[in-house]
């Protein structure tokens, strides 16, 4: 990777030396793994710093690394319109304390994305004003994208359950 592109990771490491767990650039995708305590501050920094200006929150999702500790990772993708750059943030979330701070205060568009991650993975976003299921219905049991949820775990509202 060229020096220009790694500026994001460099600045993140300088600004939050204790919060950055790991960084890598696989296939040109810059990735920083950060501790969950500082996520709002880091997001604000990424959005507002003059040399970064990541003004788009493109995607927010989670991954379940079942059998690994910490079990979950919340994954954010940001895009900077001005510098035409992308960065990925990953926040490890343990199963025992399955919460992370909501970034709605930084990007209002995170609202539905966080609801979806809650719905499908059961990760609680602290400070989210309306953390309800979004794709599934109220009363659905479990979180289907967790790896320990059965592939054929049917529980329709109407009709036979398995």
């Amino acid at each position, binding site marked *: 990777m060229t020096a220009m592109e790694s500026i994001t990771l460099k600045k993140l490491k300088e600004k939050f030396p204790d919060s950055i767990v790991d960084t890598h650039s*696989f*296939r040109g*995708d810059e*990735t920083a793994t950060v501790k969950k305590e500082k996520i709002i501050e880091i997001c604000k920094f990424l959005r507002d710093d003059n040399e970064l200006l990541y*003004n*788009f*929150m*493109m*995607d927010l*999702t989670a*991954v379940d690394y079942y059998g690994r500790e910490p079990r979950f990772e919340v*994954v954010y*993708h940001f895009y900077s*319109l001005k510098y*035409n750059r*992308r960065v*990925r943030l990953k926040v490890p979330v343990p199963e025992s304390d399955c919460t992370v701070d909501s970034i709605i205060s930084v*990007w*209002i*568009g*995170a*609202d*539905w*994305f966080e609801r979806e991650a809650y719905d*499908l993975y059961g990760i609680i976003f602290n400070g989210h004003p309306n953390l309800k*299921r*979004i*794709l*599934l*219905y109220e009363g659905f049991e479990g979180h*289907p*994208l967790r790896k320990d*949820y059965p*592939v054929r775990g049917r529980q329709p509202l109407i009709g036979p359950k398995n």
Partner: protein
Amino acid sequence: MTDLAKNLHTEHMVINMGPSHPVTHGTVKFLVTLDGETIVDFYVEIGYLHRGFEKMCENSTWEQVFPYTDRLNYLSPIINNVGYALAVEKLIGIDTPERCKYIRVITSELSRMADHYTNIAASALELGALTAFLYFVEARELVWDLLESFCGARLTSNYIRIGGLKNDLPDGFKEDTKEVFKRCRELWVDVDKLLTKNRIFLDRMRDIGIMPPDEAIAWGFTGPCLRASGVPYDVRKAQPYLVYDKMNFEIPIGETGDNFDRYLVRMEELNQSMRIVEQALEELPSGPINVDIPEYRWQSKDDIYTKIESLIFHFKTVTGGIRVPPGEVYFPVEGANGELGFYLVSDGNGKPYKCRVRPPCFPLTAAMPRMVKGALIADIVPTFDMVHMIGGECDR
């Protein structure tokens, strides 16, 4: 004279629009709180078309995901195919032959045209312009005929493969396209005459659902809706993939970010897409359409029947799926509705560990309350049309 508003007993009314309502093409429910005709509160409920796309992908081989991607945005399935294929190719680290890239661009743009035709046609229909609807549906039929000529399907194309294509373009495709585009341009002019200066259409569309650029960015808008707000962001220009950097085309942008600008942006994008297809067909190089790496792309039938190595690779990839190296990538393409990103995680087995789609209409639909609050109930129709929510993509 007493104050009417104070003494007249009025109360808010809550109505349900959907999940099955002519306006909500695709199943979605609006919970609308009204004060007279003014929208006081607006709540969108999605998920009626949730089929567990990610869970299905995690239990399929990498190639088996393609039919599922068709059913995300079912109006422009090839763009979904291309986005997924490019993401997997990035994860593997392979590059496709030049001819394949050109054909992918051509088919993506045809798909985008079909998507925009449907969008504008349906919007016109819902605002009472049946003629415009018929004209653009005719144009879409013609484009679908082209799609059918090379992949055999009109809607669920399943045409792109990892490291290549299902098959090459048929003979005479260039001439067919020329004829189709001639008719499409005529229809475009007709629809433009019918809608762009139509008083009723203007009244319903203009200054409705306005989104200022800074807010559009904060909500995560992309695609025509973002460009209508005046932000010139298009993945094809910002981070060109395939051969878009060699194509000569422009990105139309709007000024006010209202529904009418969104309509105009889409109308102009139709012309630009035609331009791209014509250039790509003109410059289409000859050569192979698939990468020659048997671990990832099947060899031709002739080779499989006559060469033992090809047969072995075919057997291994068909039964166990291709082996994608461990890692994670995000790859965005410009879908018809905005940035369509695939975030893939591989653990080195034959199946995706995680296959996430960033659906462009998801943040757009999320911003519906912001766009219609304070407007009239009739304004829901054009705003939701221009948001262009596709159930399959939004709910996955």
